[in-house]
Structure formats: C-alpha cells, structure tokens
C-alpha cells in the first residue's frame, strides 16, 4: 500500500508536532514546514499527496501559499486548518482552491476522513 505523504504547514511547532505524530500513527508520512516560504520550497522540490495548511502565519499567510499551490501545483489538494471559525473565511478558502476547511482545535476523526477522501494517492 502506498503511504500518503502529507505536508503540515503551520508556524506553531507544537501543532506540527502533534499532527505529525498523529499522522504517523495513522500510517501517513508526515513532513513539516514552519512557514509559508518553507512550504513553497518543499512543495517545489518534493512530491506530496496532500497539504495541511494553517491560515494565519507571519510573512506569507495561508491564502498566499494556497494561491501559489493553485498556480504551480494544480493537482495538489490542500486542507485548510484554522482557528478562524468564520463561514466567510471557510468559503473564501474553498473558493480559492482548498478541498476542505477544518477548524482548530482539530477534530482528529474529521481530519482522518478528510485526508482519506482527498489525498491524491487514494483517488
């Protein structure tokens, strides 16, 4: 079975750490990027099956990263993870090309389902 490679993008290292351990337990191959810039570098250099992307980050925010992905890696699915529990923000993210929007704190069951539905490797 192909294990899905997941890039976690969040400036909060504790969130990345938590998700990384969880995803590993669930059989995914997690990688971490602690900023939007780092995420773009990694995505440019490597192939990922899915990206988990935080919205509020310094320097380059989640929307900017999402825009870059849509323009440069059209088939790479992005799930937005955000503390902003606002319908408009969620709609904006989905309209901008994200495949799902999961509010923080993250419901792990919901995340797993979303990953299994959206990861390119399983499609």
């Amino acid at each position, binding site marked *: 079975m192909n294990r899905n490679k997941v890039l976690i993008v969040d400036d909060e290292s*504790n969130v990345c750490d938590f998700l990384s351990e969880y995803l590993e337990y669930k059989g995914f191959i997690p990688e971490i990027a602690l900023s939007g810039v780092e995420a773009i570098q990694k995505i440019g250099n490597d192939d990922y099956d899915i990206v988990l992307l935080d919205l509020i*980050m310094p320097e380059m925010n989640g929307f900017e990263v999402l825009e870059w992905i849509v323009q440069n890696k059209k088939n790479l699915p992005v799930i937005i993870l955000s*503390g902003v529990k606002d319908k408009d923000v969620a709609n904006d993210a989905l309209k901008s090309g994200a495949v799902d929007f999961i509010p923080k*704190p993250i419901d*792990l069951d919901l995340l797993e389902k979303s990953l299994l539905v959206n990861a390119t490797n399983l499609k």
Partner: protein
Amino acid sequence: MRRIARIRFFLIFCLLIGYRVDAQINLWVMSFDNLFADSEIGWLREGFADFIIDHYSRINEVSAFKADKLESVIDKIRSDAHFKDVSNYVLAGAYQRQSGEYIVELQLTDLADWKTISSKTVREKSTDLGKLVESVNTALDDILLSKAQPATQQPPTPQIEVPKVDLARDTKLDDFHEMKTATRNIGAALDQLLGTIQPEPAKKSEVPEPFSKEPSSNDSFTLKVKEYIQESNSFENILNRLLYDPYLIEIGEPSIQRLPLEKDKIILSFMVDYRLRIPILRDMIESMKIKTHSETDSYLEYSFSGNEYIFSSDFIKRVACGEYRFFPVIMMLDGEGKAVHTLIDFPFYRQDFYNVRKFEPMLNISAGPWTINIHCSKNIQSVKYEMKIPLATVAQIAQVAIKMMNEEEIIKLAKE
C-alpha cells in the same frame, strides 16, 4: 501512652511523605496554540502549560509533564514501564482573545489509540488571569479526575491544604512554604528523644526515602510573570506580582532538648535561613522603567519615578502602613493541617502565641508621591527559633509550615 503517641506520629509522618498514591494518568502538556498570533498574550503559550503542570503537582491522581517533543514522549512511554502501564493523555490547547474575552480550547487525546477523550472550551470574560487559569484547571479536573480510578490499594492521604498559584492575587502573600524535610528531621529527633526517655528495644522503623522535592515550575512561572509585567502599566500590579513569593526559606536540622524539671515538656529549636530570590527579583524589577539603581555586595536598590508610573495616594498609604512588609509565621501542623503550635516572628505580643523578634524584612519598599524605592538585601538571614512545647503536642506535629504575612494579616490571625 508515649508509645502510642510515637506510633501515631510515625503513622502520620509516613502518610505524609511515604505513601503517595501512584498517579493513574500521565498528562503530557504541549505548548498552547496562540490562534491569532496575539503578541500581547504570546507568553501564555508556555504559561498555560506551566500553570497546568503546577496545578497537577498537587494532585496525586494525575502526573503532568511538559511535552516538548511528542516523539520523545511516545518513545518514553513505549520503553518505560512506569509510563506504559498507566493512561497517557496529551493535552493540546489553543487560545485567543476576542473583545476582552479569553477563549481557551482544550483537547485531550489518548496516546494509546489517538482517540479524542474530550474537548472543552473555557471562556472567561474577565481579564483576570488568575480566574482564567483556575477555570482551565477546573475544566481539566472535571475530565481527568473522573477518569482516574479511585485509589483502593493505598491508605488515604491526609489532606493538607496546599497553596494555589493565583496570579490574580493583589496583595496577599499567603503561601505556605512546606518544609517536609524538617518534619522528617523532627520526627527522627523525636524518635531519638523518646528512645532515651523510655528505653525499649529500638524498633527499626521503616523510614521512607528522603522526600525528594519535585522540580518547581515556579521559576519558569515567574519568567512568564516578568513578561506580563512588561505589558502592564500599573506599578501597583507589578509590585504585587513582584511580592508573590520573594523569599527562599530553608530550615536547618532541628534539635530537641529535655527539660530536667519539666518531664512533660521539651525545647524544640531549629535554624531558618531566609534569603531573597535575587536573580528572579532582579529580572522582574529590571523589566520595569527604573529611575536609578545601585548595588553592593549586600544589597540592591532601585528607585522609580512618578513620571513613569502613577502612585496613587491610597497605594502610598498602604506602603507606609506596612502592607508590603512581610514577617514569618511558623506553624506546626497536625495530620489534618490544623495548627497545634504557632510562632509569630513579629514585634507583636499576644499570650497565645510565641512571639519572637528576630526576623528583619529583607525586601523593603518606601513610597512618596514622586518616588518609590525598593531595597533588596542580598544577604542570608539566619534565625534560630526555640520553643518550649508539651511532649504531647510534639507528637501531634506532622508538618511545619512557614507563612509570610503582613502586619494586618498577623493581627487578624492573632484575633482569630
């Protein structure tokens, strides 16, 4: 009779320091997620973790640890039976501030199967940080203590009231400095003494391992307070936090002397060393805007200008009335935490209390409308306390505690 008293003391003593109900839950606390990268409350990322760990250091059923790196936590759980055989939960938290309201989200996950045990949201309208921390701790207690199995195999542990960290406290320094080591030494000395009074085959008592003090999170806690200071404008608030716990108190070996003419009484004496937590105080004070600063080998002195801070007349009056001068009150507590003998080291006399006049406050504040001075002694102040106590009272002593109180509190205590 004496033997009964001795056994009773020994039992209380064992209960206090020997038997600790093994924790049934290990709580691994991660740094909290500052959801909107709110820089003013950025320090709460680590602050919440510290407060929670500090809270559970006083609750037997739960052992809380900082989870800096979850991967190493998981390795530790896998390899160490001590961790493997109990429930291991990871706490992931997130917080934000919206229109003056704090919203803290707590999520507990079982590391055995990564199932979410519970998610809770704590909302606190007040900007009172103490209340917020208390609400977070209560929310966690509700989840965790219901999960912990009732301890059936161990004997019940007597409840001794232990101070809670309360950032919200304005002026009170009502924390007891537990001195369990001293209690053990008093116990040993008493055993020796009673052995000489009533010769009998020396029963080798199963003295528990020396009490090992758990690492206190107080220092890191204070650092967080320091950061808070930088964000506060009220000098009075700053001072109250500065005075949260300025003294390091150490008790020396106690000695017990028999009185040839009073066989039912003994003299118990011990030394107490008082010194200020200078590095922390220095850090905290120097985070404020200082007008002048002087330092020698024996003292540190700072003055603050009214141009930078507002010194209200009420505040100046309270400084002048000694509200910020603290004196030690030494209490001998029985197994239920009730004081069986109290010694007040303060220039005040009341018949019921043993009053000594030895301690000199080492942190002094003087205030005028335009200037506030803070003087911190860098020396160690050693005070020898000596008290004549009935033998029966000594047998009741299970713990010695020192409480630093201001004049008003001491008078109130005396009246009670």
